């Protein structure tokens, strides 16, 4: 194994860990601007994390070891996911270990642990949040799988790096199914990351919470890790979207050297800035739906993904 690939692999992981809070801060800033509020500074999430790491943990008496381990498991799974997703380069040693279906399994693992930890203390809100999270999760996962199948059909591979390589090899390939998959993906991204049509990330009302309700019992460094993990999750989802739909600029296997790395860095930065603004716009324009409407919302994204498959079969672009 070349040392450059190892360097790339760890570079990509470190970039993901470092940038994820910044991305969350950028979205918060855009939202504030669009809603005519004065925006928090970009580095606000980092300040939050530092403040939380400085504090002492207040732990419930009934907390089991599971409750204490969960933040580390969450953070670990999200970092591993960031290592698998080709956000900067496709030539990654880790990416060969797991394809996109295993990636979804990784996200599911994190979800199971977070839900168990939320129920561990035994408070009503934690249990409620965990149940809601599982409901959203079990509806969002098949939709996400269908979206990925759309891309898999195009290139006959379930690994994200080979999808990106395939796109780069056939830049003129435009398949109409991509539109359906992209719309469905944005819907799933919003639902999975506790964003506005399904969950309000900034709410203070426990009864409407989904994601936040599960974190109510966490404090200090545990809370910091969980928050950081959810920032990483959002970053990872955005990078999956980039790999599936706009893979321009990602350094491929054949590309070598500093220039390709710089191009991929710049491309990722531009895509994150645009995607963050777009997410903030969608969130500002949409109102939170009732929890019982959430299945309808996710069923729609599932149907769109299935439609994408159908459209591909009818008028899919033939691979050169």
């Amino acid at each position: 194994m070349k040392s450059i690939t190892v360097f790339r692999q760890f570079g990509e992981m470190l970039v993901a860990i470092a940038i994820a809070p910044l991305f969350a801060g950028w979205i918060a800033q855009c939202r504030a601007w669009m809603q005519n509020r004065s925006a928090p500074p970009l580095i606000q999430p980092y300040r939050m994390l530092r403040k939380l790491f400085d504090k002492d943990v207040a732990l419930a008496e009934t907390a089991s070891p599971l409750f204490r381990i969960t933040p580390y498991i969450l953070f670990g799974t999200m970092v591993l996911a960031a290592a698998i997703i080709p956000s900067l380069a496709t030539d990654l040693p880790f990416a060969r270990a797991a394809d996109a279906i295993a990636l979804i399994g990784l996200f599911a693992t994190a979800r199971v642990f977070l839900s168990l930890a939320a129920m561990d203390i035994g408070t009503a809100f934690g249990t409620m949040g965990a149940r809601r999270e599982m409901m959203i999760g079990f509806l969002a996962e098949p939709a996400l799988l269908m979206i990925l199948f759309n891309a898999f059909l195009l290139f006959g591979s379930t690994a994200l790096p080979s999808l990106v390589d395939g796109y780069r090899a056939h830049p003129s390939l435009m398949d109409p199914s991509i539109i359906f998959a992209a719309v469905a993906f944005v819907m799933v991204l919003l639902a999975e990351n506790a964003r506005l049509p399904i969950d309000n990330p900034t709410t203070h009302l426990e009864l409407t919470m989904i994601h936040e309700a599960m974190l109510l019992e966490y404090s200090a460094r545990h809370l910091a890790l969980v928050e950081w993990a959810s920032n990483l999750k959002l970053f990872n989802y955005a990078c999956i979207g980039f790999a599936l739909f706009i893979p321009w600029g990602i350094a491929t296997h054949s590309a070598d050297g500093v220039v390709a790395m710089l191009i991929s860095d710049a491309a990722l930065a531009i895509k994150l800035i645009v995607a963050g603004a777009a997410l903030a716009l969608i969130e500002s324009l949409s109102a939170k739906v009732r929890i019982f409407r959430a299945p309808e919302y996710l069923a729609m994204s599932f149907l769109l993904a299935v439609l994408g498959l159908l459209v591909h079969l009818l008028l899919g672009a033939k691979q050169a």
Partner: protein
Amino acid sequence: MPYTVPILNLLAACLLLISFAMLSRRRTQRLVNLFAWQGAILFLSTCLVAHSSGLHELYYSAALTLLLKVIALPLILHRLINRLGAQWDSETVVNIPLTMLAGLVLVIFAFGLAQPISMMATTITRNMLGIALAVILLSFLMMITRRKAVTQVIGFLAMENGLFFAATSATYGMPMVVELGIALDVLVGVFILGLFFFQIREQFESLDLRNMENLKED
């Protein structure tokens, strides 16, 4: 142009996407906006077909689409809806997820049905016949599953969009006279239906078409 067919395919997919979005929307004004978008995509695809096939007639029908379906009809419908105060149409006969599922089945049916027909067509856009058929059937489904008169009219207009798209993709459009006639029919139809809305509301104090069943004499 090497990119004509892929772009046309993308536009056709957008058309189908908008049809599904129309099925899922509850607010009437959103429906009108979606209808305008559908017209805009129709305009673009007709222009592309005209450019690639070199038929100048198609430019006229594209311009007609732009004038009528993107500008005039949405304006008229918005004014009608504001006057009638009929912004909401939350009542559907079947709930929305089921409607969407039915829509999916219709799309499969339309694609299957169009497959042998499109084999016989010689145009570059023949694959899109399936999508045009699906758009027609989906608009039909919207007319069936909605209770308010305004939404049914929007469904009717969307169906006309689908027919127009079918004509462009299968045979490079209808003769100009026919197209002008249809355009005029649609315009007059919307005016007359607008009058009907006021009559219906005056009679029943609502635009719910279930009330019409009371008119039956036993």
